[in-house]
C-alpha cells in the first residue's frame, strides 16, 4: 500500500485521538488555571495554613515528572482501593501538574507589579483587598499572560504522556498503529502534523493575545 493510503486509512483513528487530546487538554488547562489561581491567591493573601499547604503542593508537583504522577494515580493508588478511570486519572494528573505551573505564573505576575505602584495605592489609602482589586490584579494578570500562555502549550504537549495509561489520545494512537502495522514513518508524520495543527495556531493566537492584553494595560 502506498504511504498515502496508509495515512488515509488511519485518519479516522487519528481524528478520534485528536479530539480526545483536545478535550483532555482543554479540561486540564481550565482545571490548572483554577487550581493555580486559588493557590496563588492563597499565597497573595497569606491565608494561614492553606497557603503553606499550597506551597508544599506546588513544590511537589513542579519537581516530579508527570509520568510518575500518572503511574501513581493509575497503578499505585488502586492498590489501596482508590480507583479512577484512565481519562480521569489523566485529567487529574494534568491538573495536579499544571496547577503548580499556573500558580507560579500568576505569582510571577503579581510579584512583577512595580513596588512603586503598590506603594502609591497604599498612599491613597487603599485597603489590602482594594489594592489587590484595583492595582495588583489588573496589572499582575497582564504580566502573567506570557507565562500562562507558555504553560498552556506545555500542558497540551504533556498530554502525549497519557499514552502510558492507555488513553487513546494522539500519541497513543500512533504508537498503537505502529505496533500493529509497522508503518512508523507514516504514522509519526500524521502524529507530528496533528500536534502542529493544534499548537501552531494556538501559539500565534496566544502571542497576539499577549500583545493586546499588554497594550490594554500598559500601552506598549
Amino acid at each position: 500500500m502506498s504511504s498515502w493510503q496508509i495515512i488515509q486509512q488511519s485518519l479516522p483513528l487519528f481524528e478520534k485521538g485528536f479530539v480526545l487530546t483536545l478535550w483532555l487538554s482543554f479540561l486540564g488547562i481550565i482545571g490548572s488555571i483554577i487550581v493555580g489561581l486559588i493557590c496563588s491567591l492563597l499565597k497573595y493573601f497569606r491565608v494561614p495554613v492553606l497557603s503553606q499547604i499550597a506551597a508544599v503542593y506546588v513544590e511537589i508537583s513542579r519537581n516530579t515528572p508527570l509520568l510518575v504522577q500518572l503511574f501513581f494515580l493509575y497503578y499505585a493508588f488502586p492498590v489501596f482501593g482508590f480507583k479512577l478511570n484512565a481519562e480521569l486519572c489523566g485529567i487529574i494528573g494534568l491538573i495536579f501538574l499544571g496547577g503548580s505551573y499556573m500558580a507560579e505564573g500568576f505569582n510571577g505576575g503579581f510579584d512583577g507589579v512595580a513596588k512603586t505602584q503598590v506603594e502609591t495605592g497604599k498612599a491613597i489609602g487603599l485597603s489590602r483587598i482594594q489594592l489587590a482589586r484595583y492595582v495588583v490584579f489588573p496589572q499582575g494578570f497582564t504580566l502573567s499572560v506570557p507565562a500562562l500562555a507558555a504553560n498552556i502549550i506545555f500542558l497540551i504537549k504533556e498530554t502525549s504522556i497519557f499514552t502510558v495509561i492507555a488513553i487513546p489520545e494522539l500519541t497513543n494512537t500512533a504508537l498503537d498503529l505502529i505496533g500493529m502495522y509497522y508503518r512508523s514513518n507514516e504514522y509519526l508524520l500524521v502524529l507530528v502534523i496533528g500536534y502542529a495543527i493544534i499548537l501552531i495556531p494556538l501559539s500565534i493566537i496566544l502571542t497576539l493575545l499577549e500583545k493586546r492584553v499588554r497594550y490594554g494595560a500598559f500601552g506598549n
Partner: protein
Amino acid sequence: MAHSGINVLFEGRNLIRLFGGLWTTVEIAAVALVLGLILGVILGVLRTFPNRLLRLVLRLYLEFFRIVPTVVLLFLFYYILPKQLGVNMPANQVATLVFALWTAAEMSDIVRGALISVPKHQRESGMAIGLNRLQLYRYVLIPQAVSLELPATINLVTRVIKTTSLLMLISVMDVINVGQQVVEANNQKYPTGVFWVYGIIFVMYFAIDYPLSWWAKRMDKKRLERANG
C-alpha cells in the same frame, strides 16, 4: 499491609538496581545538558545576529522542538533516523541526542532573551570603545547575559531531568524501566509493591529537582529585589 510492601525495595538487589537505573537517567541527562547548553549558547548568540536567513533557520529549529512533544521526538529519532539516514545509535545515545537538541533549542531562546535584555547602552558603550562584534559578545554581552539567564537555565535543567522519565518508552534501562522490572518480578510476594516502587522513584526525582528549583527561585528573588531597588 502497606508496611510489608515497602520491603520490596530491600528484596535482593532491587534497591541497588533502582539506583543503577537512576544513574542511567542522570548520566543521560547530564551529558545531554552539557552538550545542549553549550550548543544552545552558540545558537542563542547566532540568533541575535542581523542575518535574517540564519535567524529564520534557527527560529524554525526552535519551533520544531517546541511544538513536537518529547515523547514523539524520542520515537522520531529512535525509529526514523536510523532507517532514513542509516545512522545507527543505541537507545541511550539516541536519548542523549534528542535531549541535547531539545535543550539546545530551549536554551537558545533563553540566551537570546538574556542577550537582548542586556541594557542597550552596555552594547553601545562597548561599541564606543571600539570593540568588534566578537569582543563585544565575549567581554560585555555574554558575561552579563549569564547572570540574567541563570534562573531560567536551572529551570530548564529541572525540566530536562523530569522529562527523562520518558526514556522508558524507548528501551533505555532508566529508573522507571527498572522499576517496572522490579514490580513484575516481585508481584506475587508484594502485591502493594507497585506503590512503594513508584513511590521511591517519585522521591528520587523530587530529591534531584527540588534543590535545583529552590536555587533558581532564590536567585530570581534576589534579581527582583535588586531590580526593585
